[in-house]
Each structure stands twice: as C-alpha cells, then as structure tokens.
C-alpha cells in the first residue's frame, strides 16, 4: 500500500550546495513540479476516495489514512487541467501543512532533487492569478525547470470552508 520514499542516495544530485533543500519532484503534463520533502509524510498508490457532497471539484474525497480521515486533492483539477480517470494508476503524496494532513493526487513521482534555494526565482506571470498563488517560484536545475509548489495555498482550508458554507 505505502510506497517507500525514493532513496535519496541513489538519485543523481546535480551540485552539492550548502543552501540546497531536498524537494520531491513530479511531472504533471509537460511541467515539472516540486514540493519540499520535509512536508511529505509518505507516498501511497491512489485508491478511490469517498466523495464528499458539495465539496469543490478538486477535492476528490476522503480516504482512510491509518484511522485518520484525510482529504485528497487532485493536483490536475486544482491547476485547471482535466483529471486522470480513476482507473489510471496514480499516487497520493501525503503532506502535512498547518497541523492538517492532506493528500495530493499526482500522476506519479519521479525524483528527489537538491534545489539550490538561492537560484529560485519568482514565478513569471505566465500562470493565471488564481494559480499564481499555488507557486513559490521556479528554479533551473540542470536541464529542467522545476516549479515549486506552495502546499499551504493548495490545501487552503479557509477557502474550502467558505465554499462549503
């Protein structure tokens, strides 16, 4: 059920940097995204969640995480892309933000990377304002451009409560 975190030692690291932080990197569509590894608790294969009536569309529902009920948010829907069907094998990244544990459903995870924090640049205004707040910046690592995600905004509980009310 639970996949182990990717073994960081076997993954090619670009440059060793004092200011580098480890990020979990994954691909959605053509873009590469990253979330701080410290916030990630585990990665699970996605099992269909229980739908929560009247919840916004990007909330896939709730699942049982060892006795706790957590919500799973679909990253694709959240970013305005069409979601993958349930049959497609996907993963859930379980992360803790503000004392709350959430799941983020992704196509797959690819890497753990050292991100040199001083090279992180503000997000160029390519994204719409709505999605802009989900992003913490972009960084070029070797060949790849990694978009750093702001999980706090993605899981935004206040917004959820307002929608539900």
């Amino acid at each position, binding site marked *: *059920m639970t996949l182990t975190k990717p073994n960081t030692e076997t993954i090619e690291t670009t440059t060793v940097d004092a200011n580098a932080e480890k990020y979990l990197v994954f691909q959605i569509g053509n873009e590469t995204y990253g979330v701080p590894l410290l916030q990630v608790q585990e990665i699970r294969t996605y099992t269909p969640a229980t739908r929560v009536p009247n919840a916004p569309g990007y909330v896939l529902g709730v699942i049982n995480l060892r006795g706790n*009920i957590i919500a799973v948010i679909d990253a694709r829907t959240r970013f305005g892309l069409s979601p993958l069907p349930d049959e497609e094998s996907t993963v859930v990244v379980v992360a803790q933000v503000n004392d709350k544990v959430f799941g983020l459903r992704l196509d797959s995870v690819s890497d753990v990377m050292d991100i040199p924090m001083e090279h992180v640049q503000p997000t160029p205004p390519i994204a719409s304002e709505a999605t802009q707040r989900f992003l913490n910046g972009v960084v070029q690592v070797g060949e790849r451009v990694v978009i750093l995600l702001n999980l706090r905004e993605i899981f935004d509980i206040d917004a959820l409560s307002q929608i539900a009310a």
Partner: protein
Amino acid sequence: MDSLMRLFYDEANEMVEGMEQVLLALESGEPDPETVNALFRYAHSFKGNSAAMGFTRLSKFTHGLESAMEALRKEQRPLTPELATLMLQAVDLIRVLLERTRTEGDAGDPACDALLQQINAALSGTGVPACADSVGETSEGQLRTGGDARATGEVARTSGDARATGGAPRYRIVYQPAPTLSPEHDPLQLLSELLEYGQVIECRFKEQVPPVTQLKLDACYGSWELIYETAFEPAIVRALLELTAEGAELRIEPLQSVQEQFITTAVQETQPTQAAESPAVAATAAVASAAPTGKSEAQSIRVSTEKIDALMNLVSEIVIAQSMLSSAQNADTDERTRAAITQMERHVRDLHERVMAIRLLPVSYLFNRFPRMVRDTAAKLGKKVNFEIEGEETELDRTLLESLSDPLTHLIRNAIDHGIESPEVRRQQGKPETGTIKLSAYQSEGRIYIEVRDDGRGIDTERVRQKAVQLGWITENDHPSEETLYDFLFQPGFSTAQQVSDLSGRGVGMDVVKRNVESLGGSISVQSKRGEGTRFLLRVPLTLAIMDGLGLTVADEHYIVPLTAVVEAFQYDSLQHTALFDQHEMVNVRGEFIPLVRLREFVGLPDRERDGLIVVLEQEGQQIALLIDSIAGQQQVVLKSLEENFMRVPGFAGATILGDGRVALILDVSDLIRRAHQASERYAAIA
C-alpha cells in the same frame, strides 16, 4: 474489586506519583507558579476522589496538605528543603494509607496530624526545632521534640496517649448496624450519644459495598470500629448502645494497654513499641518497610493512549490489507488459500473489534461514582439533593472518560455547594426543599454532550463582578457582559465562595475544569438564571465515540445514520406522496405528513427512476422521511472527525471507516431535520 475502585486506585496512584514528581521538580529548580499550581491540583483532585470513595480520613489529611500547599501557591512561602522533605513524607504516608484502604476501607493514621503540624510549623517558620531530616533517621531526637515542643501537643491528643487524657479505661467497640437500616436506626445518633458519656479516641468506618448492580437501596454495608474512653462500666456502655442500636451487632472489648491500641489503629507494619513512642516516626518507618515490598497490586495496567492508537492504526491497515487479499481471490484460487483467507478475515475482524473495545466504555462507568459523592456532600452541607442520571449508556472513549472525571467531580460538587440552596431557603422561595442535580450525556451533531444542571440559586453575576473588581481584573465602573462575567469563573484564582471548605471553593476547580475539557479538544459553556439554576454544558469531540449505525445506499455510495434516530423503514409508494408548492414534498405516513428528503438530491446525485425505500428518522420529536435506494445493513461504527484534517462538512456529523477500509460519511440527522423543517416553515409562512 469492582471497576470503580480499580479506577480510583489507578488514578490515585497516578496523582500520588504526580505530587511526588512535582515536589522533586520544585525542590531542584526555580519555583514556577505553574508547577506549584499543578501540585495543588493533584492534591485537590486526590482529595475529591477519596472523598467520593468514602475515604474521609484520607480526604481530610489531603485537605490539610492542600491548605499547606495553598500557602506555597500564593507565593508567600518558598519551598525550603525542610518543607519539601515533609511534603514528600506526606506523599509517602498517603501511599501507605492508600494501600491500607484496600483492606481496611476508610484508613486513617495518627501520624497524619503530627505530620501536618510539622508542615504547618515549617511553613510559619516558627515551630519544631527538629529539622525534618531527623524525622526518618533518629527516632530518639524526634521523640524528645515530640514530647517537649508545644507545637506538637496535638500529637498527644490525637494519638490517644492515655496519660495525656486522664487514663480512663478504654474499649474497642465494633458496631455493625442491622443489615437493613430503618429510619429509626441512626448510627450518627448512637455515636453522638457515646460522646456524652466518654471520649471517642478513634473512629474508623469500614464498608463492604457490593457492586452497584447488587446494591440494595435500604441495606447497610458499613460498620464502625471505635476506640472509646469512658469511666463508666462496660455494662452501662453496652446498655447505652443497645438502646439505640436495635438489631445491630455489637462487640465491646476492654483494651489492655496503650500499645494495643496502636496495633490496631496505627500503622500495622511497624513495631508496636516504636509506634507508640512517636506517630510520626511510625509513619516513616512504615513507609520504609512498605516501599521495598512493592505492595501496589497490579489490578490493571495503564497503557499510554499512544500505544493503543498505534495499535488501532495498525489494525486498520491490516483490515485494508485483508480486504485487498480477499478481493484478489478469483476462480483460480485454490481451496486451501480460500479457506485461509476466510479464516484470516474472521480473526482480523475479531482483532479489530477487540482493539476498539479497549478504548470504549459506557459513561455509566464514570457516572456511577457520583451518586455516592452527591449523597455524602449533600449530607455534609445539610442540603437535600435528588441526583438524576441520564444517557449513561452513551459510549465514550476511555481516555475521554478518565479525563472527564475531574471536571465532572468539580462541577457536581460546585452544584451542591454553591448551586443548591439549603432546604429552608428553598422553602422560602417556594421551591421544593429537595434540589435536583441532573447529569446527562448524549450525542448530537457529531459531538458528545455532557450536561450538569441544577435548579439552585444560579450564578450571582453581581458578586462575580465585585470579585473581579477585588482581584483587579476590572475596575469598579466596568460592567462587562454576562458572558464575560461567566468567563471569569474559569480563570485561575477566581472563587466566589466566601469561605474555604474541604468541598470546593478554592478557586482551583473551574480553571481546572476548563483546562481539562479543552485539552480533550472540547469546550465548556455555562448558562444560568438567577434563582432558577445553572447549566454547565461540556462538549467533547466524538473522534473516538462508537455507535450503532444503519448503512444506507444511494447509487454506489454508502452513508450511515445513527440507528437511534431510525423509527421505521418501508417501501416508497408514490401514492403517499404529496408535494406542497411544487418543491416541498411531504409523505403521508399513516395520516401524518412528514417532510420528504431525497438523499440522492441531498448528496448531489441524479434522481433515480425506480422507487426506493423510505427511512423515517426522528430527533428531538421531529421527523423526516429519507428516500434512499436500499439499506446496506446495520453495523457498529467508530465516529471519526472530518474536521481534524479537513473541514466541517455541513449535513454530516463525521465519517467512519468501513470494514473494507473505505470511508463512509455519517449523516447529521438533526441537521437534516432542521433543514427540512426550516424549509417547511418558510413555505407555511408564504401560504
């Protein structure tokens, strides 16, 4: 030993250990007001619990100790090493007494008073020249100070030194009232009569109370053992007693020597000669002899909740793995594998249930300890109280229960002490002489509610205000709202009680209550009406509460309603159906129109062609007819919070995890009913 006793001992041991740790911490570090408060609270709770169990002497000793701690708490006195040692000795003594209560019931010890004297002397800075260190080590020195110092004169009297009190003959009187107490037999009267003819040196109450289920209301389960000093002849004493104690069992034995008294009354583990010399020494010696043998019986073990949580989570994972295994079976699976999976399934379900059961208990487990406490407290205060309990079958997580014990004890005691008026006052106000305190538990809107309600005098907001002014929290000209004033009640250091009793009114109660309840993720509120009564409402989360649920299915989705809300279920017949103003639908159930709620619509699913089932749900006297596809069956469910990691979902009380590891949402019946009826009222208003 019944469960109540076991719980008491478990908690008592915990508190004693707590006191010890705090004392040690205090001694080694800078005195921190919070730590002193903790010490005070342990003593206070311990006192309350032992009083509730009928161990009045233990309670009395702790009360004395608490008074001493109060001086510390008010930061008037530092904790000197001498004082710390004495306090620790007191803790040891409590431990000894506690062990003795197991066999003797209400155990007391003459050493208690002596030790309290020393503590008070040490506090006031005058007093006993013998420094505390010598108490345990040199019985010689201690003996001398005990004899000389005027401060310990009390020792002689309470320990019953025959020379000091005139040397009249002494008797041991064992008085066991008739098995069935009738109103004419008043043990108290007998005891007070004895006092007219002599002196009661020691009085010990013994009780052999059967489990609550076998308890007879009119039966007497207690007996008294007295050490009685009188100049009258034994025959006269006997005649005197027999007059008032008809049908009772009486034993009167003359006591031979001072030493013999101590064999029975002082610490038994000690050498009698030594004990007779100095009670304080006796106690210390007893501690020394009791400690290495490690007498605490392990009736139950206390396991940290984290361990149980971890176990529970692990079991949930196994359940999921099991269901994956089961669904992986196919036509090719051989018979042996199939049989193994079936067997495994059964064991896993068993394991799951058992682990869950570790944590759950009906609230009666907690509530049942209160009637006795109410009775005793009311009697002590000369009040008449009728104590009612409701909803005791509500099941609650054990940790929640245990943590609710202190807050409820405080609240109920406060209700008797400050809430209920004396019979005279009540009569004058045209109320029934007997006040009523009602303790009830119920589950609603995804939370457990526990209510303590009295019909007493209510909270005097003006007095609360004045007290707040006195404490400097507000100025004389401030007139805060009622809610703000009620909030003051929960502040540390606040107490409106004019005098300190051993029951309540030290101002530790309410802040402890609030703190305890909040630490459970709950809240407490108070409503009060002058002259009519007060209601404290505790709300605790349902995270771990369990209930019987009925599974309902719409399309491929599964929802749960609490079985208690279900009135009946029947096939939906469109003939029963009436629509009011197009949208608002009603169903005719045997001539009564009940608002119809379509579950599919409620959860945002498309309507279905075929007729389904109607489940009639009721809460607080109001009903709705819920239209569903089918019933999935009845099952026990553990309520889980949706809020903890997600948010409150309107219309749902929480969620639960089904046997296959999937999550099902639990419908909030009162919310559904409220919505439906609000809607129908709106339509009625338009019409």
